[in-house]
């Protein structure tokens, strides 16, 4: 390496001088049906803790919204360590939903977010539809909570521990139970580890979800070749990071094509401004940054800034105009 590391800045205005818009004129508003956010960048659940941790680096209200770690009815300590393993351009995790419980969160974490004036997407989790419902109920009138995201990648204790998101019917049951409880839009968060994601997506929308979050981590495993020990205490874990981006983009595109009117929160491997645009073109209205925050805590904030420049340099006046804009050969 030499000291003059240069970057190929696709956003550099020079390359696009002709069509340029004023950066300030670009409309970054994210339109998610009943929900409108100032910009289309949020955080992926479980990758931003409660928000305050990253606020040490920058003002987290710069983001369109903050999606917090999944909340369960009771507090959870999570799984024993090791909880993570690095993989090529990705990582596996098995945290086990360590969280303070919905009540603990309402009492201690939400007030901080409210004080900042942050827009919060509350992710919720449970082992039965009733647990989901009970968590949702407690969130009902929480100021600052602009949407509820339902993490359907939880083992369904009533169904051999198979995760809800694997089954359209089980997913719909959870969504029905949640949608009844809250006034804000409900997003169903799905897994790609299914034969037919569109069927699950459709079932969730019919059950009352306003939108969808795609995708959760892919189920993976890593084994230490020397010892034969699984690299995660839990054996299997969730694969995230740049490695899974092509899979996430495909899922978003597939579901957006089938359900063009449904708002989608796109997540999976987003790291650069080009990745954000790719997600939006595939059909996302809001883009969630997950693992990339681990690599660089400033990622989400930087993407908001770069998005404005990128669009302006190309003469776009809004990010919304790119949604779903894909050219086939």
């Amino acid at each position, binding site marked *: *390496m030499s000291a003059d*590391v240069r*970057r190929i800045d696709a956003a550099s205005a020079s390359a696009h001088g002709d069509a340029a818009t004023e950066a300030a004129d670009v409309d970054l508003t994210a339109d998610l049906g009943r929900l409108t956010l100032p910009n289309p960048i949020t955080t992926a659940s479980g990758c931003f803790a409660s928000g305050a*941790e990253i606020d040490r680096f920058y003002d987290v209200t710069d983001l369109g919204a903050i999606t917090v770690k999944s909340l369960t009815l009771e*507090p959870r300590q*999570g799984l024993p360590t090791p909880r993570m393993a690095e993989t090529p*351009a990705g990582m596996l995790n098995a*945290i*086990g939903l360590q969280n303070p419980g919905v009540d603990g969160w309402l009492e201690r974490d939400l007030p901080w977010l409210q004080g900042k004036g942050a827009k919060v997407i509350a992710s919720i989790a449970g082992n039965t539809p009733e647990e989901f419902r009970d968590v949702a109920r407690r969130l009902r009138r929480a100021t600052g909570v602009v949407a509820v995201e339902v993490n359907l990648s939880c083992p369904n204790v009533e169904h051999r521990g198979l995760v809800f998101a694997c089954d359209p019917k089980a997913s719909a049951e959870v969504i029905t139970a949640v949608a009844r409880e809250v006034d804000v839009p409900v997003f169903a968060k799905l897994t790609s580890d299914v034969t037919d994601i569109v069927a699950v997506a459709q079932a969730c929308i019919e059950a009352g979800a306003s939108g969808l979050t795609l995708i959760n981590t892919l189920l993976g495993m890593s084994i230490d070749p020397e010892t034969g020990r699984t690299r995660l205490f839990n054996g299997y874990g969730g694969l995230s990071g740049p490695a899974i981006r092509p899979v996430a983009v495909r899922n978003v595109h597939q579901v957006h094509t089938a359900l063009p009117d449904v708002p989608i929160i796109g997540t999976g491997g987003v790291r650069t401004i080009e990745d954000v645009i790719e997600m939006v073109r595939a059909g996302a209205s809001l883009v969630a940054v997950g693992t990339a925050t681990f690599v660089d805590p400033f990622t989400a904030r930087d993407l908001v800034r770069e998005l404005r420049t990128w669009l302006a340099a190309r003469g776009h006046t809004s990010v919304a105009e790119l949604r779903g804009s894909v050219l086939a050969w």
Partner: protein
Amino acid sequence: MSRRAGQVEGRPDADAPVRVIGEVLARRREGAYWLLSFSAPELADRARPGQFVEIAVEQKYSLLRRPFSIARVSRQGPAAGTVDVVFDVGGPGTEWLTQLALHDLVDVVGPLGTPFPLPKRRVPCLLIGGGYGAAPLFYLAEELTREGLRVDMIIGAATRERILNPIEAKRASATVTFTTEDGSHGVQGRVTDVLAQTAETCRSAVVYACGPMPMLRAVSEACAELELPVQVAVEEHMACGVGVCFTCVLPVRGKDGEVRMRRACLDGPVFNGARIAWDETRFELGPPPDVEEDEVEDEASGRLTDDELWGEQ
């Protein structure tokens, strides 16, 4: 972002971590280890012994930053604004670091985590380092000495080559005892074999330790026997290093006696060694206790209590 040396991102607050694009000022062997020195004035200004940095590695296939204890910062003189880390090569990330050349740029986030709390009284301090774990202790020794405290050291390693900088160790402390497992330098054995004796001779009132987890456990247990307060800097696998992923947790007993999973990157890496639930590191976790900690615990010992020494944590 484009990268240029000196670029810094973050809040102006004195205790806020920053991201710095630093220039490599030195990269050399240090015994069995490597030393990497880079410019990062804002980081150097904010750093305290015990804290760590996360260095981005531009290694093919590797995604995450790598955490390293801060081994030294220079705030004045010709090397002002530089940060040193000492590392052992064990995988692709550390391998990549050895290939950095002078003037290359490194992307570093820090200072992260909790520093070693300093005693509130002028008591003799015993610093115990294992392998490259000695590095942050030299930095701590400097700070303690500056505050007028007596510093003694025990430096242990598997072999003579893996004793980090014995000359520095002698300079930094009133006495230093070396232990090697193969007996190639100093006493044959482990740091815990000489702990009680050294603590007695040096009238140590507090212990600080950094090194492999089994050593930290043994030191913590020995200190419990000796009723010596002990602070340890732990190592856990970290994905983010900044408190958002919950991969780096370890079970720490609160003053209420309840064990909670604490983030080594945010609540640590420095913990009270007596509080770590060493037996439960791999335990199957039941429902957690109340999240808030109870009242201050009673200290029965006739020695200085943790509270008296470290102040409220």
